[in-house]
């Protein structure tokens, strides 16, 4: 039997651990926040991958934060328009920006300066890049594609969204690693790239699997490589980049930021609340359907900030190689 003393000890340990758990789990609610609706600014059109991400995350977040959350789509100029809007708002945590890899690229171009403008909030998703070909193409595997491209330098046409985009960067890094010379033909909207490859006008499509799942299942697009360190359960026959000897695993990540100067307690509180929203089944169901659960994407504010800096350095290197910046 336990004596009285050990009960005291036990309850003490219990209370201490409870206290620690609480102080770590729930970032303390800042006084008076939120007292007005929160606006999330998305620099891409309604219905796209980034828009779906924000809407699906904010649906449960509304209840957790206890305030209205409005989503505003402000397209154009690779996100500069939307960024300027956010920067014109006070740094009080009521305006959240959908921070995407384009912002790092814009910084390299001198159009934005992420270091001075934004404070990291959270990264939520780490998506994957895949290449696809038309089922009628002469090559149906990545090895055949490389062999064909070596025989016909400059003939194979890759497509993705917008020039100097994360899409172009990964295509060009792959081409360099595989030692092939390819063409990149950008479109301004992703659906047009799908149509161009489906119609046989262009050869290889770069896309995240979630948005073309139905076309893959109907065998209208054949996936040939996934940029990951292992094969996906969903497509066991598709080789991953690492097993083929290409150390390329970057993919589009999706996250949020606030204006620099926003008080840290508010940042931490929003981050903790979003984490709860992220864990809710309504978000997880969407993530599962869009194959966004294959790689763990969650990053806390500090981690996300560090990640920006390392990503920025590698983006700069590739843009230099492609001749976009000096």
């Amino acid at each position: 039997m336990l004596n009285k003393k050990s009960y005291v000890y036990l309850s003490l340990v219990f209370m201490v651990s409870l206290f620690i758990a609480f102080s770590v789990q729930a970032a303390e609610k800042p006084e008076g926040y939120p007292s007005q609706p929160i606006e999330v600014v998305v620099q891409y059109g309604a219905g796209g991958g980034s828009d779906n991400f924000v809407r699906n995350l904010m649906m449960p977040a509304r209840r957790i934060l206890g305030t209205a959350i409005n989503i505003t789509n402000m397209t154009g100029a690779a996100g500069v328009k939307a960024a300027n809007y956010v920067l014109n708002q006070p740094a009080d945590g009521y305006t959240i920006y959908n921070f995407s890899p384009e912002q790092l690229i814009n910084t390299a171009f001198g159009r934005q300066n992420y270091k001075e403008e934004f404070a990291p909030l959270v990264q939520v998703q780490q998506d994957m890049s895949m290449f696809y070909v038309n089922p009628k193409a002469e090559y149906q595997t990545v090895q055949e594609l490389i062999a064909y491209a070596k025989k016909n330098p400059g003939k194979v046409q890759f497509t993705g969204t917008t020039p100097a985009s994360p899409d172009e960067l990964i295509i060009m890094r792959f081409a360099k690693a595989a030692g092939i010379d390819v063409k990149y033909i950008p479109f301004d909207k992703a659906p047009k790239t799908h149509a161009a490859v489906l119609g046989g006008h262009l050869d290889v499509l770069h896309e995240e699997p979630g948005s073309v799942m139905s076309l893959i299942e109907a065998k209208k697009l054949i996936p040939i490589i996934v940029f990951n360190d292992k094969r996906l359960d969903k497509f066991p026959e598709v080789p991953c980049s690492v097993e083929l000897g290409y150390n390329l695993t970057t993919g589009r990540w999706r996250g949020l930021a606030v204006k620099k100067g926003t008080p840290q307690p508010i940042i931490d509180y929003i981050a903790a609340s979003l984490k709860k929203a992220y864990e809710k089944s309504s978000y997880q169901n969407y993530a599962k359907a869009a194959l966004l659960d294959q790689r763990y994407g969650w990053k806390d504010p500090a981690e996300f900030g560090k990640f920006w800096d390392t990503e920025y350095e590698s983006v700069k290197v590739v843009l230099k190689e492609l001749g976009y910046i000096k």
Partner: protein
Amino acid sequence: MEIWLASLLNVFSPVALMLIAGGALAGVMLGAIPGLNSPMGTALLIPFTFAMEPANGLMLLTAVYCGGTFGGSISAILFNVPGAPEASVTGFDGYPMAKSGKAGKALGIAIMCSCLGGLFSVIVMSLISPQLASVALSFSEPEYFALALAALTLIASLGGDKMIKAFIAGCIGLLAATIGIDPMTSAERFTFDGDALMGGINFIPALIGAFAVGEILMTAEAGLKKTGEAVTKVSTELPKIIELLKLKWTILRSAVIGTMIGILPGVGATTAAFVGYSEAVRWSKHPRKFGTGIAEGIAAPETCNNAAAGGAMVPLLTLGIPGSATTAVIIGGFMVHGMQPGPMLFINQPGLMYSLFIAMFVANIFMLFSGMIVAKLFSNFRKIRYSILGPCIFVFATVGAFGISNSMVDVWIMFAFGLIGYAMKKFDFPIAPLIIALVLGELAEISLRRGMRMADWDISDFIFRPIGGTILLLTLITLLFTIYGKVKRKSKFVDSKTA
């Protein structure tokens, strides 16, 4: 057949019918109010559809979509401020007709033609969706370029006698279309090292500015001695059968063009309306009357944009590729129910697809009624004196410009184009060519450049193609005819003078 019957029952359940009727009405309202539009409306509704049966939720969204495509025309006709991009062209003839006191007739034609165009595309879509989708995929850059060029050459016919002035206006539009980040190389063009113009000139604020604001400035200058047009009663009158019969070829042609352009990925109802208008001018016996307020000028774009709305559902449902902004949002509506539109959905859930087709058909009929109601409501504005209505339009215009992407830059663009429009009116330059060039300039430029890069700069790839080549040839022929006709008329004019 069984599936069709089951789907029919699905649609004709009280809940579904109510949702469709409500959706169509909401869509028309959203479209009619400048600053609100159907992509926005559908995006707002998606969270609500989460709690509904998937089929019901999607029927609601498509009904809003159908209604919204028409709704914009109401404010385009009454105030010259299109409530939605799809209605941009409707104001070219709709507003002059309303100004001449026939607002009710203009609205009636718009509603009727929207309905007919919508019904046509739904029927075509439910019969041959898969085949249409493969036609859409056969279109590549040369075809897009040919389409854009065909519509652009019609600028020559639009200016009436002022061909040179129309040409200059068109060039200004083309120039404005090049502003912003180059979509092929990401270089900044004419941005003057600032951020404001990086996103380019959005054509809606430009259009609202050039037409509506320019007009207000002109009227203000002329003085408000007139107590406004003596419009006491605007009752929307649907066109009589005989009037519709007169428009039959315009409507049929526009319905076919609209459906075809609608199914092209990423082109959408707005471009369809422009092309439909251009073709109506091309085939008309009296092309010079366009822009003065004639029935064909309303029937063509209205039939086209609603036909395109139906057409845009084809690539969405068969390939998962949205043909327009609103259909891109509707994808989100599928995704909240864990479905992704595309070929598999057609195979796995044919019942849902057929229900959607029937729902769109019904929505187009409901749109006819809700259109009448909303048009009646809005037309009360025409009873207001211009000295009060003018400033109101000014407010609509500002809100409408801001609402497109919630950006002040668009409002400044609208004001700048207001001054341009004022100057153009003052010096008797036609404005429509400016807008057409601004809208189609980007499509023409980018499809040419992208197509040339794909073809390794071999021009023969552009010409020797069955569809693209035919369109280019037709364009060339009509262009030569137009110029020949003008020159002949001019020489006749000179002859009669000297004689």
